[in-house]
């Protein structure tokens, strides 16, 4: 009789402890959620609260970064639902930083009528990113994906006065919800075959039994959702319209944060969860597994992305197709399946995200001044705004892989990791394709730079006097991002060594 209450009390204590633990370990996410709610509340009070809201949002993000830094080095809750490792902490910080820069871009976006709501949705999307990064359990990953996805659909369609924005949102939503359905079905199949949704447990099961057709179907369907998120061909069809039509901060966030987090979690799923069914994508020795699936996605993305980008005249569309191509390069590291390869993929995805936020920042300024983002709107930018032109040159050349910028080191790291991992040059075919793609890509990046540096201005710019303060913020943001790309190119070790140490 006396033992029972004690046992109950003990159980309650344990539950208390784990709740406290949970709050501690999930504090970054909690901080961001609370910030989002506060921003939403403040935004409802008045329409002219844009500055206050973004101030609060920035503070919240800074607080979340602080909370990430306070996290323990390693923790694992509820069978992988919330995992903390140096890798997840590093990428939570990167996602928060990307959200911060996106918010810097929001400030000058005049078309957004409800900045409070918009900022709150960005913050919720950021929570989605952090859940994705910090989870090794399929259900949790799916919840993260959906939270991220739903926020991004709204963000893409946020500009109510612009039909293109509505189109972007609708297309993104239709493609996204369909692929989500595939992913959920795939997850359910994997769960059915392995009896678990934790990645580590799935890995153990897969190692014990041979691959069955149903499981292969499950794996492929799971991968489709991520192929959509990273805009890999042939699941890239939403990208051009979303990049071109969505409000610029939304497009920047879709292109940066969403991609980085998707690569982190895709890497975890295939390397940790599906590790035993790697297969081989070597030219003469292909065997079934996820690696050849990703190899095909990579090859298609590199070819389609680069070749279609050649024909674009709108800079945002061009960036979208180049994003498809870059998704292809980035997949190379995962195809390799080694620790080096994963680390190269993460380095490339992170630097790519920084580059794209910066590039969209420049596009935002040009759009604000000339009312459009076609190539002809960029002509003569070097004479109007030399600093912005220089930054755009940094971004474009980094994407093309020109030293001493981060993209050059990133490509070298990716390709060398893939070549070393393939064994007997098995992946040489994919690397040759990647090299060819980056050769082709220089042409269209140079076309953008030609418009900026060589062409004479063809359009009148509307330099209104009230653009000064938001423009300054935007210029600072873009310059900081360009400096980051240059520094990461000159000293790649600062990030690469951290990622390499964190991937184990």
């Amino acid at each position, binding site marked *: 009789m006396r033992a029972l209450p004690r046992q109950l009390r003990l159980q309650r204590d344990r539950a208390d402890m784990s709740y406290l633990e949970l709050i501690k370990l999930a504090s970054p996410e909690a901080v961001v959620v609370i910030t989002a709610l506060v921003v939403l509340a403040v935004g409802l009070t008045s329409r002219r609260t844009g500055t206050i809201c973004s101030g609060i949002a920035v503070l919240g993000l800074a607080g979340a970064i602080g909370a990430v830094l306070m996290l323990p080095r390693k923790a694992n809750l509820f069978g992988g639902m919330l995992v903390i490792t140096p890798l997840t902490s590093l990428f939570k910080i990167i996602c928060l930083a990307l959200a911060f820069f996106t918010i810097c871009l929001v400030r000058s976006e005049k078309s957004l009528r409800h900045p409070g709501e918009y900022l709150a949705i960005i913050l919720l999307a950021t929570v989605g990113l952090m859940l994705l990064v910090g989870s090794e359990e399929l259900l949790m990953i799916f919840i993260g994906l959906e939270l991220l996805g739903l926020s991004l659909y709204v963000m893409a369609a946020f500009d109510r006065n612009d039909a293109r924005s509505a189109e972007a949102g609708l297309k993104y939503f239709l493609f996204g919800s369909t692929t989500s359905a595939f992913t959920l079905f795939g997850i359910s199949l994997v769960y059915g075959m392995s009896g678990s949704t934790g990645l580590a447990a799935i890995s153990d099961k897969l190692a014990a039994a041979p691959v069955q057709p149903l499981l292969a179907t499950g794996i492929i369907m799971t991968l489709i959702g991520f192929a959509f998120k990273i805009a890999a061909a042939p699941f890239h069809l939403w990208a051009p319209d979303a990049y071109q039509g969505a409000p610029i901060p939304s497009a920047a966030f879709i292109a940066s944060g969403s991609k980085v987090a998707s690569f982190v979690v895709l890497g975890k799923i295939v390397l940790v969860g599906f590790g035993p069914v790697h297969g081989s994508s070597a030219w003469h020795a292909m065997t079934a597994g996820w690696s050849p699936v990703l190899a095909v996605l990579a090859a298609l993305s590199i070819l389609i992305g680069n070749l279609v980008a050649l024909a674009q005249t709108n800079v945002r569309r061009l960036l979208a197709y180049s994003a498809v191509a870059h998704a292809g390069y980035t997949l190379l590291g995962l195809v390799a399946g080694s620790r080096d390869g994963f680390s190269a993929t993460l380095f490339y995805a992170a630097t790519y995200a920084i580059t794209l936020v910066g590039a969209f920042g420049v596009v935002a300024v040009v759009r604000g001044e000339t009312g459009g983002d076609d190539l002809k709107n960029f002509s003569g930018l070097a004479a109007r705004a030399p600093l912005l032109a220089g930054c755009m040159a940094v971004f474009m050349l980094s994407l093309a892989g020109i030293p001493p910028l981060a993209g050059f080191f990133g490509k070298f790291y990716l390709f060398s990791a893939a070549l070393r991992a393939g064994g007997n040059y098995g992946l040489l075919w994919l690397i040759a394709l990647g090299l060819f793609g980056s*050769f082709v890509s220089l*042409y269209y990046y140079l076309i953008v730079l030609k418009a900026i540096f*060589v062409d004479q201005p063809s359009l009148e710019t509307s330099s209104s006097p009230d653009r000064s303060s938001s423009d300054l913020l935007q210029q600072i943001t873009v310059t900081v991002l360009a400096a980051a790309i240059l520094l990461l190119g000159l000293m790649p*070790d600062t990030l690469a*060594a951290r990622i390499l140490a964190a991937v184990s």
Partner: protein
Amino acid sequence: MIAWTIYLTFAGAVVLLVFPDVLARWIALLTAIAGFVLGIVAFVRTPVADLAHFMTIVSVPWVPPLGMNYHLAVDGVSLTMVLVTGISAVSTVLFSWDVDHRQREFFFWLLLVVGGCYGVFLSADLFLLFAFYELVIVPKYFLIAIFGSTNKEYGAMKLTLYSFFGGMFVFAGILAAYATAGSLDLSQLVQFHFSPQLQSWAFPVLFLGFAVLAGIWPLHTWAPTGHVAAPTAGSMLLAGIVMKLGAYAGLRVAMNLFPEGFHAWSKWIAVLAVIGIVYAAAVALRQHDLKFVIGYSSVSHMGFVLLGLATANALGVSGAVLQMFSHGVIAALLFAVAGRMLYRRTHTRELDALSEMNLSHALPFAAFAFVIASAASMGIPGFSGFAAEITILIGVWKTYPIAVWITGAGMVLVAAFTLRALVKSFFGEVRMQTGRVSTDADWNEQSITLAEKCGACLLMFATLAVGLYPKFLLDRIMPAVEAMRFLK
């Protein structure tokens, strides 16, 4: 100390962005002179014996997990190339003294090219070398597309894409070496024995990639259009040093890393080189535009470099290095006269139009410089071209005697097109007493400026000095070449 050529040049490029436009050319000149003086001092003060092997000057870990080091080294070959880079840089800045718009941008891109070239010549780490090599590509695009002339956007894009196309093969070759040997350090890689099977495909990939930049036939077509489209400074840099990057890197990386692959493929390189020499000379004979003549003559002379490399003996390869120096100086001088001295005043490069202008009387100094350059280009004894080409041909005689005969015929063609261009441009028969020149209102203000004279004198001095006393360079080149392991 020689490493400061790189730092100073890049620092100069950044510094001049901060200052107003009018100061840009002075900062560029100071930077270029500093690099040149550093090169000279290093050349004179380094003991000859030290230059026989690739001597490390700086080695700092860069990306330790991947084995990348910031590793610079120098030997007789690279020091010679540093010297010609310095000479070209100084004269190039002098010959762009009157660039009148967007000066900061112009000299910024120009110094980036120069700094990248110094970097390639001094790198002893494969990744570092490749980074500098690719760094040179894009500034060339802007130099040509913004400041160029005839069909500049087409020429710039073609040149850039060709360079990047070559870079793609270089990338593949470097990856193959890295993935196999697990190191990027050139001094370690030359000790590594790559399997013959790997060498047989990695060598041509790597060498071909580099040779695109050296203007190997049939991938040379970027060179004439690029030279013609480029502003004078651009052509001088392109012909003077950028084309040498390809040949130098082919020698330093491809041939040293994969000696067996090199021996298997060297005869094909020789064949392409000989075709290049003869073909480009024949094409040059038919050109009407003076810059096209010089552009094709560059391809022809770079053919000698490749032929020298293909001999795989110390004499031929040393001759090739000497030819890189010699052609760097001569081509810069030719382009300076054609692009800067003539075109800026006559506004035409058409040989037929020039021949009616009686320019040898109007521009005696330009005529003098062009005669010297032509003589050097034809290989008249006493100029550097002769010393280099005779060394190459002696080397070739040991390996491919038949090539000497064909090349000899090619040299007659070289003499023919050079003389034709010389006669037509400066010593044409005057049919009208009042040519276009004398009626040009600006004419008097456009006599040859001091900056141009200084630049031309520097280049003429260099070609004469090396022509009269090639031992000065060869004493340093030969031991360094003999230490390389691909020699038969």
